[in-house]
């Protein structure tokens, strides 16, 4: 394909020549950083840590269930394990790992130098970390204090009468803190995307991953309020003695389910859409052609998000809402499958006639598409009300949501790790090891979760710590547990590859995969200020347009094929350290010390988050109280926390953003 003389990615000219803050990396620097890239790394590392904790809990669950009448883990511990496993995986694993990519990658994709509110961004991270600590802190108070009511915490089980220990309180306060963190982050990303796109990047030129970030963030700000209020009611029921969920007082336990699932269903899209975005970046790159049906993809994503608010009661088919409500929610649920199916066909269409390169990221992306589809199909099965009555609370449901959450979300996120690792570290992860990693994970995953469909249909209930000899479930449980350990092992392989490649990974230049989006236009890793000159965007796939011409602009199918002809190098890892990259690197180095104005680091976000943490700790743990000040029985630590929080926010408001 002919290249075109006219430049499609032009510079956005700059005049500013003040000081660049030098990039240090001591502990203090990490604590006060407001650089979106560092915050992205913090999010990623912390999320992976929590994924490992959640994984460990899963391993214990599977060890207990490996044989009938096993007495290794008692019922109380088992309840704690599945609750913590679910809560951890969702709120501390998958969500923050997505946020890690939003921070690091999305900002680069739109050609910005940071997010709109860098200090708020740091605050979100610290709140996330402390929220995770509050949840897991419960382990230190004995197993009866560990949240044990299931990840969706149904009332009235969570009411004081049935859950008299602090277990539920740890869960409530942790979710409240995590909710604040997620919402603040979402505001920040929406403003960043809408306001800070590089010149020329119209909405319909944004990369798909940026689109899914935008839509997911909108879901977060619209869905989290419902759970926040639901948790406020629960807190008041437990601590103040109101009766929001207590039938005796005229309250209704189903109110919790409504509020929770009004949040909860959009939440599952919050978990999956970022993975959709990642796959939509990887599939075109390794099929060597632009995303098939880009605009349809955008509309489908928006449609999924919109419809996602109208299906919540499909989680409540068995609560007796009545045939009318059930039919309506059944229909809306099935409707959602349409835009979801559209996306799957878009990816397939992108791969059709493409020059597919099965690199590790591509393997994970294709794995995601296939496994998510299986989960999607069993999802449509639950939408059929009478069928759901059988699936409900059985292992069939566990199988379903692991196919979408693990096979969908986590496979997508791992694809993202393999794909963007070179951007973050300047090195690629070991490719042959990566392929082993994929195949072992894929095998382990299917051995673990596919037989759960059978177990569920045979009537094995979820959340039971044991099953009897002669139940007929013994065989598949052995298979599932074996698969689970294989899956656990594959997660360790991933961890090992991430660590090992930091030192031994092959060094690469700006755009090792020859990908089309802007994050690949700057060096790997990027300088503090990301782009020396803000790029000017005239195309949906700017780096391809600039390199191969623009014929494929708005024309989704063929052109990409003939682009190729370009050998991707051994093990599928091309080294694209060409002149252009070198020149960019030079420019960046030359530039260090003069040029671009970046905001100052700040410790106020950490201080304010610490205040929030102390407030929660003060409410959870008995400390001397302030009875001296009057009738208010309020913990000193909580008061200190409140003061620190308010002080932090004021300090931050009056601190100049940059000098």
């Amino acid at each position: 394909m002919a290249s075109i003389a006219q430049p499609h990615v032009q510079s956005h000219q700059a005049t500013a020549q003040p000081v660049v803050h030098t990039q240090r990396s001591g502990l203090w620097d990490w604590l006060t950083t407001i650089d979106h890239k560092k915050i992205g790394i913090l999010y990623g590392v912390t999320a992976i840590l929590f994924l490992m904790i959640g994984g460990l809990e899963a391993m214990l669950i599977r060890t207990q269930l490996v044989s009938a009448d096993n007495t290794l883990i008692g019922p109380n511990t088992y309840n704690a394990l599945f609750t913590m496993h679910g809560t951890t995986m969702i709120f501390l694993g998958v969500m923050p790992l997505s946020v890690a990519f939003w921070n690091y990658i999305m900002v680069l994709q739109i050609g910005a130098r940071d997010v709109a509110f860098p200090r708020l961004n740091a605050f979100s991270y610290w709140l996330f970390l402390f929220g995770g600590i509050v949840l897991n802190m419960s382990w230190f108070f004995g197993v009866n204090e560990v949240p044990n009511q299931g990840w969706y915490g149904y009332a009235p089980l969570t009411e004081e009468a049935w859950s008299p220990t602090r277990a539920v309180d740890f869960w409530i306060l942790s979710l409240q803190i995590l909710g604040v963190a997620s919402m603040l982050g979402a505001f920040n990303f929406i403003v960043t995307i809408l306001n800070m796109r590089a010149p020329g990047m119209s909405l319909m030129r944004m990369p798909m991953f940026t689109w899914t970030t935008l839509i997911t963030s909108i879901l977060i700000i619209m869905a989290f309020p419902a759970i926040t209020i639901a948790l406020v009611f629960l807190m008041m029921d437990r601590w103040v003695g109101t009766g929001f969920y207590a039938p005796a007082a005229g309250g209704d336990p189903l109110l919790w389910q409504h509020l929770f699932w009004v949040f909860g269903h959009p939440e599952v899209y919050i978990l999956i859409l970022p993975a959709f975005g990642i796959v939509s970046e990887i599939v075109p790159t390794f099929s060597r052609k632009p995303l098939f049906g880009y605009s349809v993809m955008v509309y489908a994503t928006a449609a999924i998000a919109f419809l996602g608010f109208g299906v919540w009661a499909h989680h409540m088919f068995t609560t007796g809402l009545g045939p009318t409500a059930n039919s309506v929610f059944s229909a809306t649920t099935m409707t959602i499958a349409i835009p979801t199916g559209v996306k799957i066909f878009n990816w397939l269409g992108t791969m059709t006639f493409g020059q597919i390169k099965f690199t590790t990221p591509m393997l994970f992306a294709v794995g995601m598409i296939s496994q998510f589809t299986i989960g999607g199909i069993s999802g449509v099965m639950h939408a059929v009300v009478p069928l759901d009555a059988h699936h409900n609370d059985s292992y069939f449901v566990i199988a379903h949501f692991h196919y979408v959450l693990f096979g969908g979300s986590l496979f997508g996120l791992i694809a993202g790790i393999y794909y963007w690792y070179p951007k973050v570290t300047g090195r690629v992860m070991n490719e042959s090891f990566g392929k082993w990693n994929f195949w072992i994970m894929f095998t382990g995953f299917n051995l673990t979760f596919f037989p759960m469909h059978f177990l569920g249909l045979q009537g094995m209930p979820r959340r039971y710590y044991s099953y009897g000899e002669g139940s007929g479930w013994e065989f598949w449980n052995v298979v599932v547990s074996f698969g689970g350990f294989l899956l656990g092992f594959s997660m360790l392989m991933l961890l090992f590859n991430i660590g090992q490649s930091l030192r031994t990974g092959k060094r690469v230049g700006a755009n090792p995969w020859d990908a089309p989006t802007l994050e690949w236009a700057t060096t790997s890793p990027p300088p503090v200020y990301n782009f020396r000159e803000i790029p000017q965007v005239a195309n949906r796939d700017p780096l391809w347009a600039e390199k191969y011409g623009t014929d494929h602009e708005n024309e989704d199918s063929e052109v990409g094929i003939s682009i190729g002809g370009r050998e991707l190098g051994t093990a599928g890892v091309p080294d694209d350290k060409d002149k252009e990259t070198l020149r960019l690197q030079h420019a960046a180095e030359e530039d260090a010390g003069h040029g671009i104005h970046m905001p100052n680091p700040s410790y106020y976000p950490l201080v304010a988050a610490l205040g929030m943490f102390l407030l929660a700790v003060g409410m959870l743990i008995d400390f001397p109280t302030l009875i001296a000040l009057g009738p208010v029985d309020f913990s000193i630590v909580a008061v200190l926390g409140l003061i620190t929080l308010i002080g932090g926010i004021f300090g931050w408001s009056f601190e100049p953003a940059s000098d």
Partner: protein
Amino acid sequence: MTQAVEVVHASGGAGHAAGHGGDDHTSHTATGINHRKLAMWLFLASDCMFFGSLIATYMIYRGRAEEVFREGAGTGPFPSQLIDIPFTSVSAFVLLMSSLTMVLALAALQKNNLRGSRIWLAATSLLGATFLGGQYFEFTEFYHEGLSLQTNMFGATFFTLTGFHGLHVAIGVIWLLTLLYVSLRGGLKQKDAMSLEVAGLYWHFVDIVWIIIFTLVYLVPYEEMGTEGLEEGGEHGMRLIEFGRNALGTFF
């Protein structure tokens, strides 16, 4: 082949430097809307969902206290015995007037009339505080009549919903007073009008929500309960006078 990012030294705006957090150069945002203003709009959208959840809950449980009582379980007092529409209309009016003064404060600042902006800012805070005083009175009054969070579903939902709104007003007042303080120290000039505008958006929103709450909680009639379920009959009326007495009692 052309370069991905051409490195050209020339004149032009470096508007995309990071750290937009504090500055108000709207011309540099892709939408033309200031960052903080856009963030506030988004927050308000989200806040609609907060209030939406609370109001929906209130409406679901509306009349539940009476129902439970009829079934022979719960106790009063009930809304028909407590709600004082004239009194709350006055405080609603006060809150609405504070939106007017807020507009005036912003207009003054935009015209570089610093003195005017301070006066109207002070007036807005004062009106907001007056509304809060009214709510304090109302809450204590209801409490003395025997209504607490634990009494019945009306107590739980009423205090939670109006309290959540009151918290919004309280945060608004603190915010406005902070701006007033900054202004008095010379930190709120014409060029900083955006700071006031953003606070104003929030303030107007809190007012609008009150109109909805006022309608659904106060104006829409409740089942008439006479003196049923009251402990000692309870006295009604004359609340404003009592308010004066209470307020004096609080301060002296």
